[in-house]
């Protein structure tokens, strides 16, 4: 089993990531990832079928930065925020340098007019670099339970 320091570090990373998005500090979002990272948003059916084409596919830290730049400066959409509820994180494996974890989530979307709805449910399947502090994501695979997305997905999950 992972020792408590590693366990706490992983929990801190996963909670801080959600706070960063929910607090609209998206400029800090890419800092949760190593440079040579992967961030994918897909769905359960595609994931189980081994299909790699999800709705977002970032294969470098630069692609994450571009997502945020586009959201802030380029893309047109109605203002909204998320509220993440991330369940307890299970550490599936740990080899001293890399931890593999799973965390389930509910994400509510709060529109600028107050309209609130359950926007996404699913699980994070993470590979985390725990060789040095602060811990960072090597890979964050967001597996949505549903293949349906309401209207659009612009703020990262």
């Amino acid at each position: 089993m992972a020792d408590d320091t590693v366990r706490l570090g992983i929990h801190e990373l996963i909670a801080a990531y959600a706070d960063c998005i929910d607090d609209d500090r998206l400029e800090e979002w890419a800092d949760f990832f190593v440079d040579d990272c992967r961030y994918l948003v897909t769905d359960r059916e595609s994931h189980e079928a081994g299909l790699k084409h999800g709705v977002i596919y970032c294969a470098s830290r630069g692609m994450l930065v571009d997502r945020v730049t586009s959201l802030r400066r380029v893309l047109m959409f109605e203002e909204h925020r998320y509220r993440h509820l991330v369940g307890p994180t299970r550490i599936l494996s740990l080899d001293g340098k890399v931890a593999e974890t799973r965390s389930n989530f509910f994400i509510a979307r709060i529109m600028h007019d107050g309209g609130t709805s359950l926007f996404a449910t699913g699980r994070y399947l993470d590979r985390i670099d725990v060789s040095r502090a602060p811990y960072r994501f090597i890979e964050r695979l967001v597996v949505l339970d549903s293949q349906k997305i309401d209207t659009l997905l612009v703020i990262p999950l």
Partner: protein
Amino acid sequence: MSVQDGMFAREQGGVNWRSNALSEVPFRVYTDPRQYALEQETIFKGETWNYLCLANEIPSPGDWVATTIGEVAIIVARDTDGQVNAFVNRCAHRGNLLCLKNKGHGREITCIYHGWSYDLAGELTGVAFEKGVKRQGGMAPEFHKDEHHLHRLRVEELCGLVFGTFSERVADLQAYLGSVVVGGIKRVLDGRPTHIIGRSTQILPNNWKLYFENVKDTYHASILHSFLTTFRINRLSMPGGINISEDGGNHFSFAKLDYAAEDADYQAAKLRSDTDLKLEDNSVVESVDEFGDQISVQILTVFPNMVLQQVRNTIAVRVIRPRGVDRTELEWVHLGFDSDDETMQERRLRQGNLIGAAGYISMEDGCVGGFVQRALKDNDDDSGIVMMGGHDAESQNFRASEAAIRGFWKKYRALTGV
């Protein structure tokens, strides 16, 4: 549908067109539930070919998928002879939904309610307790299984795309599409085997026609989707055009790109806008001229429910599914060729960020129809103006035009009789 049914539906329809001009569209056409009901009868169940699925989703005898035409539940199945059949997903006995999953495989389809079973050509093959139990009950003597079967559709296939129609009268598929649009399909689905590399569904808070018009609208692309202009992806000088089928319903628009010049720009890190913005990672747009004709964008529609897109090296079928007067489901089916090497596979995935519910040049289409729908709420007495590029629905060799939208209304009005 009979002519009488059509007359009845039209009498129930609530939208009056002020003129015969294609360049004027009454707003109520997007909001009136009676109009929506009329469309289900005269368009989706009328003289149109509807996209059903890809042939490679049901490669083997016994394979089936469930889909919809308009709001009608449909099964598409490959029978023991290898023939693709389509029928309404409704038991002939009491109307129960037969297939409860999206796909499956089997020799026959059995209704869970009373155990009636059908082969994959839609023929009724078994009726539970047909002769009764212990000589009591059973079907009345005048009941004959061979007089009952599932409601079958006409089916045709083109380039691996399977289409179906309720209509006995509509022309064969290729005549319906028109030779120009057939050519557009064959250009992308050029005979190389394809496979699905991903799929998702975007829920649009608007009438289905607002999305269909959006796809035919070459005017909005470089305005609403500012990602294109910000990063100078859609160059105004790009040669292109719009090809529209004679009846107006089907079309494709295209634009050419100087791939070599753009590549040189990437090398010189000049892919930036007049603002200070620049992409950190250009791989989201780095593309190759895979069809050898410099066409970097081809958007093709088949009235009333399909889009075939090539945006750079992304290839996708989009299926438009009406789900009420102000709700539409847009399914994205992303395709790759079996011959793609690893580099091409990765390229398609990275460029996949351009399209779909989170796509840099498509996400706005998910919300803009909803904005129109909201603006029309209890406020739909007037008409929209579709006059860019004239009043006709003819093919044009420029894209600052709404000609393809007028084509949509030409076909729509011919079918709905308004």
